[in-house]
């Protein structure tokens, strides 16, 4: 699969930040439920992050989760569970993504694609000057 270039864009948020950032449109699926979201491609994040409300939209049930994560850093003070979802970024084939599903909502935290495991699935090249980034799926 050939690399594909995406453009940075600014997403509305509660903060005053209007800067363009490397967001990408991704369709997340859990069982038969799918939602299309904008996720921040963030090489500085150790994990993928799924806000609480987005997990609920996908049909995840907080009370039945059985893979608690030991969070000690930025997510400290908020429970988080490990969940497996399918993620599809067109034009690439769908892939398995492991997320830290946190009790923080999308008003508090972004949907983040981080080192585990998005950056293991994709080779990512950022070009801040041209406001673009390139994704190439690892084999």
């Amino acid at each position: 699969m050939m690399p594909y270039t995406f453009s940075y864009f600014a997403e509305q948020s509660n903060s005053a930040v209007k800067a363009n950032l490397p967001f990408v449109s991704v369709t997340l699926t859990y069982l038969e439920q799918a939602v299309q979201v904008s996720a921040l491609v963030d090489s500085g994040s150790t994990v993928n992050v799924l806000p609480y409300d987005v997990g609920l939209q996908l049909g995840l049930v907080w009370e039945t989760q059985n893979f608690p994560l030991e969070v000690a850093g930025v997510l400290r003070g908020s429970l988080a569970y490990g969940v497996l979802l399918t993620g599809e970024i067109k034009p690439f084939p769908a892939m398995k993504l492991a997320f830290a599903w946190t009790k923080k909502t999308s008003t508090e935290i972004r949907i983040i694609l981080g080192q585990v495991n998005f950056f293991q699935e994709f080779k990512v090249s950022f070009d801040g000057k041209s406001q673009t980034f390139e994704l190439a799926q690892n084999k």
Partner: protein
Amino acid sequence: MLLTEIEKTIHPLSRTEKLQLIQFITAELLKDERLDYFESEKTYTLWSVYDEGRAAQQLTELLEQNPS
């Protein structure tokens, strides 16, 4: 205005005024390069979840336990 005219205007300025002018020109250049993302005195949220090494290890184990 020609650059030579600007030089004549700048020359009599005090040292402080010249430094202020440098600051102004630097700010203008940053705007041109679109590097002026952040404004002073404003609070910005840090989104990166940058220090969750143990959680990353656990998610890796979760993926290994559930191969495709």
